[in-house]
């Protein structure tokens, strides 16, 4: 039995998987808040949260409860529809992004033939949400943050796409599962060694795409207070927060899939390798956040247009030539 070309079985699979992905996103946010706070505490030579629960493990859950219970303060003269749409729009599309991710050999929601295109297309929604949030909230800091978010997001998407395309060229497939299958189990057969430039570009752009320090200019705490989400409180803020961590998780999974061999590992392939690699990338993002100062906005765009973009085009060209010869 089929509904518009999709069998009932796979439809049920998709629904179950989406629910699992929602659970993953929420659990991930809780885990990452704890990891980030403990990690920053470790870097800054302080204990971090330790009071709530054993070693402060319930701190993140308590914070979530606090945000749920907080009053939603809506400032005067906001665009009501867009103001409330923006946090939802930031959070929901991330769900679709997890569909093509191969967590394990059999743990994939849907083996989408053009998975890369799906990810890159839906990733743009987060940008739109930031723009709407800044625009609708009737705040000058918000509109400045929204402007920054758009020009940064648009700029950094291009080298990101080109870096991923280099891997796609090499594999000859846009299916993420096939990209993982094309890589070997041993670490030296993963893509980051034969595509070092693409890996480097991707690492830089993933920080910029997730609006994390040192590229957190749309939020730019020291000049824009909180940028596009200045006027959001309670769950509005929590959804942006959740979306940020979900985006981090997504780019880390994509990084693991494209460059770090996905679910393949030196011993015993399986979904645990995907998670280990993704969380290693996440820790990398946390680490640089607490180490580096923020770049200035024009410097940020200069890095992209003058360095990353030519480099990624060059890398793509070299990849194409090498594939043609070999």
């Amino acid at each position, binding site marked *: 039995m089929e509904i518009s070309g999709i069998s009932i079985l796979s439809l049920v699979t998709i629904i179950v998987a989406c629910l699992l992905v929602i659970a993953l996103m929420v659990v991930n946010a809780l885990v990452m808040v704890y990891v980030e706070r403990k990690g*920053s505490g470790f*870097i*800054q*030579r*302080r204990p971090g949260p330790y009071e709530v629960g054993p070693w402060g493990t319930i701190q993140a859950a308590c914070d979530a409860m606090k945000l749920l219970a907080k009053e939603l303060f809506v400032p*005067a*003269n906001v665009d009501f529809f867009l103001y409330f749409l923006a946090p939802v729009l930031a959070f929901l599309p991330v769900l679709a992004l997890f569909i093509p991710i191969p967590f394990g050999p059999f743990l994939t929601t849907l083996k989408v033939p053009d998975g890369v295109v799906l990810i890159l297309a839906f990733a743009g929604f987060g940008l739109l949400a930031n723009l709407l949030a800044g625009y609708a909230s*009737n705040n*000058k*800091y918000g509109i*400045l943050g929204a402007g920054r978010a758009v020009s940064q997001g648009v700029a950094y998407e291009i080298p990101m796409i080109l870096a991923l395309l280099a891997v796609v060229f090499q594999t000859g497939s846009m299916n993420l599962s096939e990209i993982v299958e094309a890589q070997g189990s041993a670490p030296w057969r993963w893509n980051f060694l034969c595509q070092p430039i693409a890996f480097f570009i991707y690492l830089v752009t993933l920080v910029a795409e997730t609006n994390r*320090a*040192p590229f*957190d200019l749309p939020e*730019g*705490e*020291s*000049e824009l*207070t909180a940028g596009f989400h200045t006027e959001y409180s309670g769950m509005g803020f929590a959804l942006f927060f959740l979306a940020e961590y979900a985006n981090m998780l997504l780019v880390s999974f994509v990084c693991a899939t494209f460059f770090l061999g996905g679910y393949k590992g030196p011993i015993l392939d399986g979904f645990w390798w995907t998670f280990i690699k993704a969380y290693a990338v996440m820790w990398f993002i946390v680490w640089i*956040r*607490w*180490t*580096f*100062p*923020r*770049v*200035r*906005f*024009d*410097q940020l765009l200069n890095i992209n247009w003058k360095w990353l973009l030519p480099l990624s085009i060059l890398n793509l060209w070299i990849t194409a030539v090498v594939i043609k010869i070999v």
Partner: protein
Amino acid sequence: MSNFTFLNPFAVLDEPGTYMGDFFSNNFAKKAQAGNVILNLGPQHPSTHGVLRVIVELYGEYVLRSEPILGYLHRSHEKMAEHKTAYGFLPNMGRVDYLNAIGWNWAYTAACEQLAGIEPPERAEYLRVIAAELNRIASHLVWWGAFVLDLGAFTPILYAFDDREWICDILQRVTGSRLTMNYFRFGGVGADGDDRFFSLIREFIPLMRERLKMYKALVTDNVILRRRLEGIGPMDADLCLRYGATGPLVRAAGVPRDVRKSVPYGIYDRFDYNIPVSPVNDNFGRYWVRMEEISESLKIVEQAVERIPPGKIIVDKAPKPAWKLPPGESVYSVEGARGEICVHVISDGGKSPYRVKLRAPGFSNLSVFAEAAQGTILADAIAILGSLDLVIPEIDR
């Protein structure tokens, strides 16, 4: 009734008369060009570090004009001086500038001593130098952390506070407090340093030198930080002198002016130290000058701890709380962490001084901002504001 229009959620902001700004923002908006955004930074803003308010006119992200607005932390210290006895006003000095309490202690105490002709004993002079230099280091450390925080690096401020904790512990042994220190008395100091005090200092000096090396490797040599500082916010000597800026600002502009060297007070002429003068007058110059001053202050403390003689810490028959200043006036300048602190005391021989004028270095340093920030990007303007090392309570007094 007109105040209500601002709170009315259905009001259109662009309609004239519906947006009720205060006097300052309305006055500032009069000169704005059409289409530019007027942005109000503060009084509550993460990077004004206190209750400073700056109104800026933005074209895109470029700052066309800016105007600092003061007075949100005015506590009328100068007026209080006219109602307290000279001795009773001493605790206020720790509260004018919470980061550099000892500097203010010194300026006021010395101004009164000059008027009354009191000479503090030798050991007290050494203790004064040790306390003042340690306080300068603590102040620069806090500035360093907060400035780098303005540039978006979250970690260094906690490292800086970690080191400052040492200084707080050391100064707590003699002053009794960790922040609003009230150590100096007319004719000496309040308490003598014990063995633990000196051994803590001897431990701290090599530790701090190691930490400075780490700061250089971690922060000063970071490429992002260098790009954010070098060539940003140049302030030449002419600009600084026109506005009366002092301290690290003017030394970064290439003027070797430091009260400790140019008009030596206390016993500063007995120590071997340099006044760092930066070859570049941008943000990095000011950063470099302050970091160098930390190591120069360490040198002074090291020498003072070695040479400190035994003896009294306060003169015999030191002024009592009800002591009356003799009639006359006196002016005394010391080099604080932020620049030249100058106290002008006028007395008519009554119970309390007739007038006490406090010259805060931050006030003059802040007035440079509007001109220096003109034409920079907002993020750079914030960096320039941070590089001035402002302590708002000191500016508002």
